[in-house]
């Protein structure tokens, strides 16, 4: 009989507590507590402090060197150097002639032109000489 009464009482208590809902903050509190518990069990491991300190030191050094900047003279020095190099590397020749194959073809064409021009000049010279020789012979 007593058991039945107690069961009924428990049922009533169950029914009356059915609407109980946790406060929203409880979720966060439980999660935070779980996270704290979990990280308490973590072994920091040797050297972790050093690693964190080194990272902090590097970050600070990054900040302290963030204002580094060369003087205006630097750009001028670079451009002067470029002007010295430029005729050899660009500007003096059209862009397409700066590629290896095109440059070779162009050089070959120039060389062939020079050879044929030299041949032409030589034959003109020979003709002149022969004409002069003829006139000398006629004179004699």
């Amino acid at each position, binding site marked *: 009989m007593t058991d039945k009464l107690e069961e009924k009482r428990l049922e009533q208590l169950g029914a009356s507590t059915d609407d109980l809902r946790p406060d929203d903050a409880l979720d966060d509190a439980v999660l935070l507590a779980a996270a704290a518990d979990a990280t308490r069990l973590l072994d920091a491991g040797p050297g972790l402090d050093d690693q964190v300190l080194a990272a902090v030191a590097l970050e600070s050094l990054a900040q302290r060197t963030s204002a*580094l*900047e060369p*003087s205006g003279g*630097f750009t001028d020095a*670079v451009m002067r150097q470029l002007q010295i190099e430029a005729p050899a*590397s660009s500007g003096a020749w059209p862009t397409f002639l*700066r*590629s290896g194959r095109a440059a070779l073809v162009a050089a070959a064409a120039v060389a062939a032109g020079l050879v044929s021009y030299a041949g032409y000049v030589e034959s003109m010279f020979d003709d002149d000489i022969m004409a002069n020789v003829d006139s000398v012979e006629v004179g004699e």
Partner: protein
Amino acid sequence: MTVDLRLVAARVAKGDVAAYRAIVEHTRAPLYRLAARLTGNLVDAEDVLQDAYLSGFRALSGGKYDGNARIETWLYRIVTNASIDALRKRKVRSEGGEPTSEPRFDGNVKAEARVALRELDAMLADLAPQDRAALVLVSVEGLTAKEAAEALECTEGALEQRLVRARAAIRKAKSREEAAHD
């Protein structure tokens, strides 16, 4: 006003040498910082940056820039590689007992930055050039692992290995220092 340096680069490629000034003016500050942080030395930073700009100019004039990457990123990679080379050369120089020269263009460098640079150089002195570069790009320059791997032309896995080695070397140096004090 933002300038698309790719357009400027196209002019340089067509032989407009003077246009290169715009590229130098727009990129020199961050690249100087990068070179200074990587080499930890203003003299080397100046030399590295000058050489990097000359290499960049030659590459542009020779049609070796494909226009895919931003000019800034492309030059960043050139400066990083040039700095690693400078670190290697400096190591050889110091082993040969050669003295270092004074900086030529340091008008804008404040004492605070100079001290910080010396601290940085001392902190990273024991690191191999490639490991040092990895750490500087990620922890000082603030690049992501992907960006740093691209700048160093290696995989992200290789970068991670370099970072682990660099941090271990710093830890070891610190322990040595502490042991010497005790």
